[in-house]
């Protein structure tokens, strides 16, 4: 289990600035879909209860219908939980030293990558659509020095604010780094 106070390969002076997940719409959609897929067959069964009740009392069809109903509900329950896991394990951690991107792809694939703040060249935020504008969520893209490499923060809350924080962290990192180099050169421990 990850502990935000003890990140993998954490430097002594490194601390977590932001911990991000996709916005609440992602898990709300899972709950709504689950409720809908339970409510529709339940509603149909209640509406036609005079017939469904007779089927359920039948010594052969009754247990078979009951078993299929149970399998349907358990499958929905499991798939909802799998979707939630996919949502829950997609995380982005911004520290004062790097950006860590952990992405769960299905149940068996997992990608973890990290980007040093020194490599950040450009940060872009994007809010799309009426819902995104109203609830203030969207994407943030972090372009690195490598030509095709970029980090994507997908459907996160307050993308503009996140962009500003990343830019601020990058500036602070570069300033501190430059000061350290100047100090090292003044000490004579580093030369050009």
């Amino acid at each position, binding site marked *: *289990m990850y502990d935000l106070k003890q990140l993998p390969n954490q430097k002594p002076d490194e601390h977590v600035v932001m911990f991000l997940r996709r916005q609440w719409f992602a898990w709300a959609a899972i709950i709504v879909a689950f409720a809908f897929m339970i409510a529709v067959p339940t509603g149909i069964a209640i509406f036609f209860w005079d017939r469904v009740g007779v089927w359920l009392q039948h010594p052969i069809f009754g247990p078979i219908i009951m078993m299929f109903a149970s399998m349907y509900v358990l499958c929905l329950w499991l798939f909802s939980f799998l979707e939630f896991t996919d949502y829950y394990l997609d995380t982005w951690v911004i520290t004062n030293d790097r950006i860590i991107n952990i992405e769960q792809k299905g149940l068996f694939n997992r990608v973890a990558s990290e980007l040093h703040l020194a490599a950040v060249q450009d940060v872009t935020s994007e809010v799309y659509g009426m819902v995104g504008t109203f609830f203030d969520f969207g994407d943030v893209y972090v372009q690195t020095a490598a030509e095709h490499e970029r980090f994507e923060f997908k459907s996160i809350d307050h993308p503009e604010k996140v962009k500003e924080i990343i830019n601020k962290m990058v500036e602070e990192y570069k300033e501190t780094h430059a000061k350290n180099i100047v100090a090292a050169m003044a000490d004579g421990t580093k030369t050009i």
Partner: protein
Amino acid sequence: MPFDITNLAIPMWTFLGAYGLFLAVFSLYSLFNLYHLVRFGTASTGLYAVTALFAGGTVLLVGATVFLLAPYDWSASISVSDLLRQTASTKQFFPGK
């Protein structure tokens, strides 16, 4: 004696076997999913709450199924000829018609 499919009788417990197989696959996926959450999730109250909710919900759903399936007679057999006769008669499935 020539083979006649209408003479076949399928014991009801074979359906329970199929259901048991489904539960085994369900348990495997559930455990693997729980392992993923516990192994790679970030330690938080939310994670513990969701894990407990899933485990509790699963126990409740399986328990309710056992409770609802228990009253049926699982030692009975389905005779194909009876089944064909019963499905041919729509009266018992569509009362009022």
